[in-house]
């Protein structure tokens, strides 16, 4: 027996442990956002119905998924070229409890210090040049809601007819994590930590 084959079982256990460790750390980091992140409530907006349901998840758009150009600070109006697709959007709670975008910036959070009722959420934009764009599309990594097979249809149909809301946890770095899904004011899903 070669040295490698004698050590094979310990090596295999190390391989399994490392892969389990990777998976566990992914779970922990997500659970940490859920546990410690600030909760914001976002207005859900129906997206193109042909695209709504792909397999086992519902595609979800938000009021803040497309932002008017005026909200952005420091856009290079000349070229309109975006070097860093990362977008920081400052949210503020409205009177109805829904959070709205008040300002945004590419590459870094808006310059002014956020007030107590404000939260910065991080996303990415898919367009490389905004010289002609009036609305800027932003993804936050919370655009899907996974459901047990076959349960997506009623929500897909409901999205076009009545308001849905999503409670989202946002951590200090701006990472967002879906927390709870509301049909109007009625809670339909709440995510456990693990």
């Amino acid at each position, binding site marked *: 027996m070669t040295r*490698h*084959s004698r050590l*094979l*079982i310990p*090596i*295999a*256990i*190390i*391989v*399994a442990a*490392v*892969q*389990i460790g*990777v*998976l566990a750390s*992914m*779970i922990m980091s*997500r659970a940490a956002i*859920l546990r410690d992140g600030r909760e914001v409530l976002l207005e859900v907006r129906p997206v193109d119905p042909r695209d709504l349901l792909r*397999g*086992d*998840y519902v595609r979800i758009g938000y009021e803040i998924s497309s932002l008017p150009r005026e909200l952005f600070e420091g856009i290079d109006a000349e070229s309109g070229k*975006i*070097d*860093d*697709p990362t977008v920081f959007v400052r949210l503020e709670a409205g009177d109805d409890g829904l959070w709205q975008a008040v300002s945004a910036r590419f590459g870094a959070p808006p310059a002014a210090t956020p007030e107590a009722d404000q939260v910065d959420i991080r996303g*990415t*934009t*898919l*367009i*490389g040049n905004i010289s002609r764009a009036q609305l800027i599309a932003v*993804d936050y*990594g*919370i*655009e*899907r*809601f*996974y*459901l*047990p*097979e076959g349960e997506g249809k009623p929500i897909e149909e409901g999205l076009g007819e009545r308001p849905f809301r999503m409670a989202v946890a946002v951590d200090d770095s701006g990472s967002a*994590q*879906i927390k709870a899904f509301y049909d109007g004011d009625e809670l339909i899903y709440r*995510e456990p930590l*693990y």
Partner: protein
Amino acid sequence: MAGYLDKLGKDITRWRASGLVDAATATALEADARAHHRAGFSFGSVLMILAATLFGAALLLAIAANWEAIPRLVRVGGIFAVLIVGYAGGAFAKGRGHHAIAEGLWLVAAVAFGGGIALIGQMYHLSGDEADALFVWALGTAFAAAGLRSGPLTAGAVLLAGSWMAFVFGDGGPGRDIPVGYLVFAVALWAISLWTASVAARHLILLSLMLFVVLLYIEDELLYVPMLLAALSVAIVVFTSQRPVLADRVSGLGDGLAVQGLLGFIAGMSIVQAELYEGPYFLPVAIVVFAGIVGALLLAGRDNRALRWLAYAGFIFELGFVYLTLLDTMLGTAGFFFMAGLLLALLAWLISRIEKRLAAPEAGEGA
């Protein structure tokens, strides 16, 4: 490669008939060839790998179904259990000499790792992270392949890394469109494939690099990129034909390296040709393609059946392409074909003269 045994059997019968070998030697030669041959390929291993792939697909689909009857923490625990049982159980089976079972179990475990990543994405409703997920999966599989010295896992890691590369290209978006890091990944996987002795993985790496060039061209439309691929491929074919021993030591691919070289040449030149087919460069490009194919045939085709077939296919394809596209007029194309045919006939005549003069008593191999 049953063809090899058939051919050898015929040769041995002929040698026996002409008295070159006696009956005992003939039987021994044939038995040795058969025994050696069987060691290289086992239906048991292949079927086990196919079975493992099916188990893996079942596992992934079961996760995708998001079945509520099983609480998700139990699902996570199930994945962890599959990882431990798969990797450690495979190592145990390997120690007992059950290689096929070992590779099958490891493959299921590697798929379960990807399944775990997908499950977490589902638990936390992540979107837009497919590229990162594929990357982590590929990295984890490459790690397992290196640690366990597994050929099938190496090939699997190459497929996953290649999928990541293609996905990043397809995903677009500013700042993340060209996965240059794949080149580093490919070098690392190449090293792992030498350690795990996986010829299949090395072939897949070369194919994925060709795909990289094609996608790079689609992204940036820089014509020198496919030209560079074609030039590099020519260098590879020349290198394998001039220094076959060294080439095999570096690549471990044997005859396969020259085949990859010719394939790379055809892939690169196809892009160049598709780009330049309207205009004055059409004729020169077509001449380069024909010359390259014939050159590869002459340099490396003698003992390389796969390369010969690829060359024939490439030649016929190019002929058809030029025939259908036409150089200005039908008459012009006819003239081009006539001149090219004349040149090849002349070349054939020259070569057969040289071969006769060298009086190499080698039997023609047919196709």
